């Protein structure tokens, strides 16, 4: 005779792989059921729970929407930081410490954007997105826009680190060395380059969407 519990609870406890990682985050009712070993050894149950939670966090960070979100969100923070620095330098306002912190946030944000975007590009873009764009209405978007975007992104880190080093100079030294204007241009240039790369990313996403529709 069938009972409802057979359809609610798993016949055997669901085993979460202990070494292998899942490429996608997936929510499951059964994933929180510990393996038999851990059920029989409740003293190590917190270890399993912690490991399971860690696997979920890693899987979540590796998922496509989260990677894109980190890539774009971090880039926006980086662009805003260098625009903010531009304003501070132009008005000669803010303490030296605040300039260092602003430029530091910008550098860290661009590095995060680079890592997240790079992981997405290497793991998912080539196998999933690129074929859609290449067979869609605008294959040139990959050949010109994506190829340009992925390479000029590599300019941003050295540029932003250089501007970060400039913020280590005292305000008086920046004036004495007569570099205020050029630092304004560099800081603004980083923001413009980030915005340009963002616009390119939008064109790539649009080409992929239209590639799927058509």
């Amino acid at each position, binding site marked *: 005779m069938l009972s409802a519990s057979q359809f609610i609870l798993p016949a055997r406890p669901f085993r979460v792989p202990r070494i292998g990682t899942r490429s996608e985050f997936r929510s499951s009712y059964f994933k929180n059921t510990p393996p038999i070993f851990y059920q029989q050894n409740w003293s190590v149950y917190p270890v399993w729970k912690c490991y399971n939670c860690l696997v979920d966090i890693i899987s979540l960070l590796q998922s496509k929407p989260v990677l894109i979100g980190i890539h774009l969100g971090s880039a926006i923070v980086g662009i805003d930081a260098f625009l903010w620095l531009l304003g501070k330098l132009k008005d000669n306002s803010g303490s030296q410490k605040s300039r260092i912190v602003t430029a530091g946030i910008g550098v860290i944000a661009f590095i995060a954007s*680079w890592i997240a975007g790079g992981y997405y590009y290497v793991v998912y873009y080539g196998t999933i997105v690129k074929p859609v764009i290449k067979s869609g209405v605008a294959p040139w978007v990959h050949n010109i826009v994506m*190829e340009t975007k992925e390479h000029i992104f*590599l*300019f941003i*880190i*050295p540029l932003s680190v*250089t501007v970060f080093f400039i913020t280590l100079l005292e305000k008086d030294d920046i004036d004495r060395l007569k*570099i205020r204007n050029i630092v304004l241009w*560099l800081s603004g240039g980083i923001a413009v380059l980030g915005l340009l790369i963002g616009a390119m990313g939008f064109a790539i996403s649009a080409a992929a969407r239209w590639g799927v529709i058509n």
Partner: protein
Amino acid sequence: MSNNKPKLVISSAYASIITIVFVVVITIWAELSVPLKDWLKIFSGHHWTSKSIFSVLLYAVATIILYVLPNKHGQDRLKTILEFLLVITLLGVIVITLFFTGHHFQIF
């Protein structure tokens, strides 16, 4: 003013110029030379990852070497090198964009 800070900025600016030129050259060279692109793919699994690793290493190593070298730069050198960095960045963006546009239309 500590003399180390302007020297650090100059070293970083020079290293950035070297890195940007490297990225432009290796990108164009790899598109025109299949063996080079294949080697970049083999090195790390993806040509872009290899370029990223090399560019970061080049920037870091060049900055450290230029900073450690006992060269004395004039104070006016800082402004000139930062202007040069801005120009090289702009040229790098233009060259890469034009190259991939021309490559798409099979001009080269």
